[in-house]
C-alpha cells in the first residue's frame, strides 16, 4: 500500500503529552493514520501504546497537544465527543460485551440509540455482521455462553455496526487462550484486506508482518521507530527498537 500516505490523514496526532499525576505516559508523540491504512503499534509494556490508542477516542484526556479525527479537532464537550466516538470503533482486550443483552442486542443498542436506526434495520445489520465474523447462529445467545474468541468477534461486529471510519484494537487477543487467537486475527486480517482503516496495539508479530502497512514501535513514552513491517521488525535502527526485538526473539 504505497499510496496509503496520500490525501488527508484520518487521524492526526501532534505533540501528544499525557500525564497521570506526576507520571508522564506519553511525551510528545506525533502520529498520522491515513484512510485504508493498517497501523500496528508494538513495544514493551508500559511504553504508552494503549494510552495513545485510548487518546484517539477520548477515553483518555490528553494533557497537551492536538488530535484531529476525520478532519475535526477532538473536543471533550459531551455531544461533540459522542458524535466523533460513533465514527471510531473500539475493540478492547477484555471484550466488554454487555452481559445482560443477547449478542444481537449488544450489536443493536448503539445503532438504535446513537444512529437512530429502527429495530429491524439494526437487527438486519447485526445478522449481516455476525455472518461476516462467522457467528450468525449466536445472535440470540448471551455473551456468557460464548468462548473468548467468539466474544471478541462479537465485539468487533458491534463496533463495525456503527460504520466507523477507523477501528481501534487494544490488545484484542491478549486475554485469549492461545488456540482462540487465530479466529480473531483472521477476522481482523479480513477487515484489513477489505480496506478498513485500523490502529492495532498487539504483541502478535505475525499479524504485524502480514497485515500492517506500517509498524510503529513505541518505547519510553515515545515513538522510536516507524516504517514498513520489514524495516521495523527486521532492520530496526534505534537502540530501544533493537533491544525490544532482541527480547522478543529470545521468548
Amino acid at each position: 500500500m504505497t499510496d496509503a500516505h496520500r490525501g488527508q490523514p484520518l487521524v492526526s496526532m501532534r505533540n501528544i503529552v499525557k500525564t497521570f499525576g506526576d507520571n508522564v505516559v506519553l511525551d510528545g508523540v506525533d502520529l498520522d493514520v491515513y484512510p485504508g491504512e493498517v497501523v500496528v503499534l508494538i513495544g514493551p509494556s508500559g511504553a504508552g501504546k494503549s494510552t495513545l490508542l485510548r487518546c484517539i477516542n477520548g477515553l483518555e484526556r490528553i494533557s497537551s497537544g492536538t488530535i484531529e479525527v476525520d478532519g475535526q479537532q477532538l473536543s471533550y464537550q459531551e455531544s461533540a465527543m459522542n458524535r466523533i466516538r460513533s465514527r471510531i470503533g473500539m475493540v478492547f482486550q477484555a471484550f466488554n460485551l454487555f452481559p445482560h443483552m443477547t449478542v444481537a442486542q449488544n450489536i443493536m443498542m448503539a445503532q438504535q440509540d446513537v444512529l437512530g436506526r429502527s429495530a429491524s434495520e439494526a437487527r438486519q445489520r447485526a445478522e449481516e455482521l455476525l455472518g461476516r465474523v462467522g457467528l450468525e447462529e449466536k445472535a440470540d445467545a448471551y455473551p456468557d455462553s460464548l468462548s473468548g474468541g467468539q466474544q471478541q468477534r462479537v465485539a468487533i461486529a458491534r463496533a463495525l455496526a456503527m460504520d466507523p471510519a477507523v477501528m481501534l484494537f487494544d490488545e484484542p487477543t491478549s486475554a485469549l487462550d492461545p488456540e482462540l487467537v487465530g479466529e480473531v486475527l483472521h477476522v481482523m486480517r479480513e477487515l484489513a484486506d477489505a480496506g478498513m482503516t485500523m490502529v492495532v496495539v498487539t504483541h502478535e508479530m505475525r499479524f504485524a508482518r502480514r497485515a500492517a502497512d506500517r509498524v510503529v514501535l513505541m518505547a519510553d513514552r515515545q515513538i522510536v521507530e516507524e516504517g514498513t513491517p520489514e524495516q521495523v521488525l527486521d532492520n530496526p535502527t534505534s537502540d530501544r527498537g533493537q533491544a525490544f526485538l532482541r527480547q522478543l526473539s529470545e521468548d
Partner: protein
Amino acid sequence: MTFFDNFVEYAPLFIEASWVTLRLTAVALVIAMVLGGVIAWMVMSRFGPLRWLATAYIGVIRGTPLIAQIFVLYFGISEIVKMPAFWAGALALAAHNSAYIAEIFRSGFQAVPRGLVEASRSLGMSKRKTLRRVQAPLALRTTLPVLGNQYIIAVKDSSLVSFIGMTELFQTSRNLQAQNYEPLQMYLMVSVYYLAIVLALTFVVNRLEHSLSKHRRPVEGSSGGSDGGGLRLPVWGRNRKAEGRA
C-alpha cells in the same frame, strides 16, 4: 386454651394486622427507593456540597437507633401538622431505609465494570444513555439480593412503629397479651406471621433474581443452585426441593 386453639381464634385479627404491616412497609419502601436513588446520585455527584449533605444524612441515619428516629419524626411532625400514625411511621421507616438503600445503589453502580461503561461510551452513547441501558440494569442485577435483604429487615423493623400507637402486626400481639395474659403465646404467634411474610418475600426475590440472571450460564452440579450469593431459603427448604426433584 392451647396455642393451637388461640392461633385459630386470633387468626382473623392477625391476618388483618398483617395487611397493615405489609401496606406500611410497602409505602415506606416505595418512598425509600426513590429517596435512596436521589441520595445515591448525590453521593456520587461531582458537586461537593451535594456529596457532603448526602454523606452526612447517611451517617446520621446509620448512627442513630430507628426507634429514636421514629419518635423524633412523629413528635416533630405532630408539632407542625396533625399526621396519622400510619404516615408518620411510614415516613420514619422510609427515611431510615433510604440511607441503607442509597448505599446499596451506590455499591451496585460501582460494581459495574468500568470496561462496560467505556465500551458503551466508545460507541458514542451519551452518559445518560449509558446509565439507562448499561449501568442501571447491571446495577439492579447485583443489588437485587441485597435489596431483598433490606426489604426483609424493613418488614421486621416496621414492628417498632407500634410504639407510636400504630395497630399493626406487632401492636396486635401486644394488645392481645394485655387482655389474655398469655405473653409467650402471643409473641410466638406474631413471630409466626412475621416469619411467613419474610419467607414469602424471600421466595419472590429469589424468583425475580432468577429471571433477571438468565444471561448467566447455569452452573451444573454446583452446590445448592447458588446464583449470585443473595437470599437463601432455609436449608431444609432447599433439601426438600432437591429430594422432590430426585
